[in-house]
């Protein structure tokens, strides 16, 4: 289900991991391969099990069943302090009684590296996250964004095989967050270490990741590149979680899908089907388009989103479609919309999970 991108060897192999807390099933059978040097995001709502999965990789939880392998070594049987994996915690978890420098040096000191080496590596790490000037300060004296950088440096200085990041940007305000997303991405490219990044923010995931693994109620819905997960969502849940979409419930007969007054060509087999249509693929109809599916409707509401707006259109049979149009472009009340049949992507159902 989740092969690594081509050309990159597998670093971490998660096989059939399940985790139950008491009677609560948090992870059900999750399998995932993580490639060396890739930036993978585990995306999901709260309660999806994403943090638990991360903690299992880090070693703070033991899986109820399943295995985690790193190369030829069985990782899940080792305690956290023996794994070549480091974590950036959500609240940073900096040691309050140590200075920034001492925090970053911690892992190296514990491994009893020689002084000269420790000093040099710490200086390098602080340089990379631009915190050299604050080296001698205690964590209580620096801002949240700065603490986050220190947490990063502290983890990276140990040159782990894999870096885990547990929603590290969620405590930052929007602007700082965007800035850090860019910095993190370039940092990852620079050090070349695989990053596994956990977040609930789908935009963040799209911006930063080489691949996204979308987790719902303890199971993986889809693992793919951002582009693919956007344009070819596998299930209704994925289509709705990432970006906006119109979900069309249709009946297919002889290569034609019918949804109320709307019908379009499709190649899938007969029977009931669900389709995802992104708002940007709807447009006011023009005479020139051939083979486009068309429907008439009335504009209900326009939601202003800056450069574009999302327009809600009520069509025949009560079907409400959402269309993306450039702001101010649509003035008429009565419109006719069209889309190319190829843009209606068939998706699987996403049944409720216990």
């Amino acid at each position: 289900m989740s092969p690594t991108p081509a050309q990159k060897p597998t670093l971490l192999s998660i096989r059939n991991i399940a985790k139950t807390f008491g009677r609560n099933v948090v992870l059900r059978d999750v399998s995932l391969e993580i490639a060396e040097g890739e930036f993978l995001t585990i995306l999901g709502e709260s309660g999806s099990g994403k943090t638990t999965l991360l903690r299992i990789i880090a070693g703070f939880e033991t899986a109820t069943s399943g295995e985690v392998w790193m190369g030829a070594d069985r990782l899940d049987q080792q305690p956290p302090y023996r794994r070549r994996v480091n974590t950036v915690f959500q609240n940073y978890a900096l040691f309050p009684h140590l200075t920034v420098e001492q925090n970053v040096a911690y892992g190296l000191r514990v491994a009893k590296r020689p002084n000269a080496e420790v000093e040099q590596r710490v200086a390098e790490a602080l340089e990379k996250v631009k915190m050299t000037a604050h080296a001698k300060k205690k964590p209580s004296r620096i801002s949240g964004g700065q603490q986050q950088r220190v947490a990063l440096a502290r983890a990276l200085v140990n040159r782990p095989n894999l870096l885990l990041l547990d929603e590290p940007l969620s405590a930052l305000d929007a602007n700082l967050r965007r800035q850090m997303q860019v910095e993190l991405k370039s940092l990852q490219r620079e050090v070349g270490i695989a990053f596994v990044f956990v977040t609930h923010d789908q935009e963040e995931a799209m911006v930063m990741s080489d691949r996204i693994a979308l987790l719902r109620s303890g199971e993986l819905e889809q693992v793919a590149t951002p582009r693919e997960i956007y344009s070819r969502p596998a299930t209704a849940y994925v289509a709705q979680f990432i970006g906006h979409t119109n979900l069309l419930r249709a009946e297919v007969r002889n290569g034609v899908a019918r949804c109320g007054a709307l019908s379009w060509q499709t190649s899938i087999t007969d029977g009931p089907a669900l389709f995802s249509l992104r708002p940007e693929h709807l447009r006011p109809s023009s005479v020139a388009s051939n083979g486009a599916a068309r429907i008439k409707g009335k504009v209900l509401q326009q939601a202003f989103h800056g450069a574009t707006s999302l327009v809600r259109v009520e069509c025949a049979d009560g079907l409400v479609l959402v269309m993306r149009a450039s702001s101010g472009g649509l003035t008429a009340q009565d419109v006719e919309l069209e889309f190319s049949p190829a843009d209606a992507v068939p998706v699987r159902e996403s049944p409720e999970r216990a």
Partner: protein
Amino acid sequence: MFSRAYKTAVTVPPLAWVAVFLLFPYALMFCYSFWSVTPAQTILHSWSLDNYKELFQKSVYWQTLLRSMWIATRVMLFSLLLGYPLAYFLSFYSGKRKDLLYQMVIIPLWVSYLVRAYAWKTILGSDGVLNTLLQYVHLTSHPMDFLLYSPFAVVLTVTHIYTPFTILPIYASLEHIPRNLVEASHDLGATPAQTFWKVIFPLSIPGVVAGATFAFVLSLGDFLAPLLLGGPSGIMISNIVVSLFGAAYNWPLGAAISLGMLVIVISLLFLSERLEKRWSFS
């Protein structure tokens, strides 16, 4: 938000009471320490430093004070040795039993001092439970006298009484340590033992200082345990004060010693407060 009347009503009564029943008595004790007593057993309100001179010159007072401080030090050390690992266990390793075990720590605290001291008296005596038990199982052939009416008995009993007092602040400071610091330490490669010494212990020092201070200060001023279990060799400074206010009738001298103790205690409290501040990082 609060009116003048409210603020006055809420501040004045307690302030007044505390002034009358705490501040004034201490001041009174201060004055007494400079007065003296006539052979006719009346108090002479003449101001002099005679009492203090006597304290500095007569060796019995110095010796007893030093012995008391030595006893208090031992109590403090034993309480810490017994109490810290228990507090650590309770905070980090007790899992589901945490509540129950915590209650078990505070219960002895509120059980009467007298009951506990008396219990040891019955155990340590030459006809006591311990001696007769040992003889019964033929580990000893005659009673061990040093168990009771000795400094040993005092240290043992007072440690027993004040260990929970020491455990509580240590436990509180351990509980305040965010658990993700422990995880971070493991994540960075430190074993549980290394994590304890590099992260947990330093962050628990304020609690240790507080606990040690309680144990020391309270044992220093204890007079009941020495009276019950100390015998002649276990007399502590407070016992001298008690007799000066009793049979030996010399209130001014007694006040001088009490004042001295008060000064020592307050100094220790200040010292411990500064230490706690220096070692607190939040």
